[in-house]
């Protein structure tokens, strides 16, 4: 790829060819993952947490693992349904991003003294989040590209993006660094979801009604999960209102009403 004098002068087709490539992903993550081990600088010292702080953090991380496993299964399942090569390649980069998120959260649990993360995840997972995961899996199994991309890359990713951003503001230094790296990946995923659906809605306006139904079904589950996570993180109630803002702005731009 030659060095462009002005990136905005690219034609839309060349832009897409670049940003949906492995090559782009590869050069992008080099910037913020180099010298990181399991998402943070290895020299950062483990923070002193009280037993109740540690316990709350473990619950939140267990639920993040459920969300990331849902996203990993979702993104990988969608590769077979993706309409073209660029979309397949982009989703492959998302698959490895989601796998990495799952790995770094699991590693964080181990560092916090959780001996068997899988058992702990099973024990602490929110029933609503599990329900969301089942619904997403069903959409992927039905090979419903539009609804599954909406559920995964718009609803789930936007919610994770906002939660991680808010959590990073309160987190210990190691968890914060892990979250900041993940947020950088999520930017690509939410942008991809919004653009892909925006394009399809332009050509198939009737799709909007169907996505509205998906939203009505999934919104309560995701919002309740978020509320639970923020409660665990003890985020002041006044600040929680900001959380849904980026998600609501995205669905508003797509014209998918709740």
């Amino acid at each position, binding site marked *: 790829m030659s060095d462009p004098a002005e990136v905005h002068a690219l034609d839309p087709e060349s832009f897409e060819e670049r940003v949906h490539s492995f090559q782009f992903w590869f*050069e992008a993550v080099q910037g*913020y993952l180099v010298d990181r081990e399991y998402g943070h600088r290895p020299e950062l010292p483990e923070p002193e947490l009280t037993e109740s702080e540690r316990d709350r953090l473990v619950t939140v991380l267990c639920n993040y693992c459920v969300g990331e496993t849902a996203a990993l299964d979702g993104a990988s399942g969608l590769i077979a349904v993706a309409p073209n090569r660029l979309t397949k390649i982009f989703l492959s980069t998302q698959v490895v991003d989601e796998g990495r998120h799952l790995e770094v959260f699991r590693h964080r649990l181990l560092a916090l003294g959780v001996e068997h993360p899988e058992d702990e995840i099973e024990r602490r997972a929110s029933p609503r989040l599990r329900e969301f995961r089942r619904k997403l899996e069903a959409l992927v199994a039905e090979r419903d590209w539009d609804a599954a991309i909406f559920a995964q890359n718009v609803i789930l990713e936007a919610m994770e993006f906002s939660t991680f951003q808010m959590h990073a503001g309160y987190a210990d230094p190691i968890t914060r660094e892990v979250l900041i790296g993940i947020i950088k990946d999520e930017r690509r995923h939410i942008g991809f979801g919004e653009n892909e659906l925006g394009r399809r809605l332009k050509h198939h306006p009737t799709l909007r009604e169907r996505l509205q139904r998906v939203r009505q079904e999934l919104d309560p589950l995701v919002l309740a999960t978020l509320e639970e996570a923020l409660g665990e993180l003890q985020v002041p109630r006044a600040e929680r209102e900001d959380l849904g803002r980026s998600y609501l702005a*995205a669905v508003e731009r797509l014209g998918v009403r709740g």
Partner: protein
Amino acid sequence: MSAEIAKLPTEPARRKYELFDDTGFDEVPKKYRKFYRRWGGEGDPLAPNEVLCPVCKIVIRSNRELRPGDRVYCMACMARLRVAEGPDGALVGLVEY
């Protein structure tokens, strides 16, 4: 020059900007980093060659002054945007699908 072309209003020359990769933005490949920077929130004013990506809240920079109708790309979230004038006269980016 034909009379037709001579009548067209001439657009005032745009200011040029030299961009440097000096903002610490590390989310896109090195060669594209100078075109982006992190946004500091409400109190962070945008220069005439900058516009905010509404999808991922990253500041997009161009090497020329931006005007309504220009197309810009956000590589952090892969959005294509059209520059427009917002209600308060400031430039905003509208997502184009």
